C-alpha cells in the first residue's frame, strides 16, 4: 500500500511537471490549454489519491475526496469557459481543419 502510494505520488509529480513545461512551451492558446488540463486532471488525481492512501481511513481522506471531486467538477468548467471566451474574442486555433487547408491551396 505504501509503495503504491509513492508510485502514484511520483507519477503525479511527474505529470504536473510535464504539464507545466507544456503550458510554457506550446505554440498557441488552445494547445497550452491542452497541456494545462493534464496537470489539472491527471496530476491532481494521482497526487490526491497518493496522499489518500497515506492518510488511511480518517477525516483527512474525506476532505481529500471533497477536494478531488471539486477539482474534477470545476477545472473542465473553467477550461470550457476560457475556450469559449477566447473563441468569442476572435482567437483562432493554430491548426487548420482539412476544409481550411483545401481553401488555402
Amino acid at each position: 500500500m505504501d509503495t503504491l502510494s509513492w508510485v502514484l505520488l511520483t507519477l503525479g509529480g511527474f505529470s504536473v511537471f510535464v504539464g507545466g513545461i507544456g503550458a510554457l512551451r506550446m505554440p498557441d492558446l488552445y494547445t497550452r490549454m491542452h497541456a494545462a488540463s493534464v496537470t489539472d486532471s491527471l496530476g491532481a488525481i494521482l497526487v490526491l489519491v497518493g496522499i489518500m492512501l497515506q492518510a488511511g481511513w480518517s477525516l483527512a481522506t474525506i476532505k481529500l475526496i471533497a477536494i478531488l471531486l471539486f477539482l474534477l467538477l470545476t477545472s473542465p468548467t473553467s477550461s470550457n469557459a476560457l475556450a469559449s471566451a477566447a473563441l468569442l474574442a476572435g482567437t483562432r486555433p493554430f491548426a487548420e481543419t482539412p476544409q481550411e487547408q483545401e481553401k488555402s491551396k
Partner: protein
Amino acid sequence: MYYAVTIATLVTMALALLRAVLGPSVYDRVLAVNMLGTKTVLLLSVIAFLYGRPDFLDLALAYALINFIGVLAVLEFFRSRALRRSAERGARQ
C-alpha cells in the same frame, strides 16, 4: 517523497507564473493563473501531510472554491468586453 512532489509543484507554479508574465493574450494569462490556483491546492494538500498538519486541507478546499469563482468572474468580464467591442464595431460599419 513528499519533498519531490512539493518541488515539482513549486517548479510548475514558477513555469505558470512565467507564462502569465509572458502570455501574449489576456486568455493566456487567465489560463496560467487558473493553473497556478490548481497547483496551489495540490501544494497545500501535500504540505498538510509533509508537516503533519491536516488543518491545511481546509485551506486547500477554500482556495479551490475561491480560485474557481475568481476565474469565472474574470472570464465573464472579458467576455462582456469582447461582446461590447464587436457590437461597437458593428454599429460603426
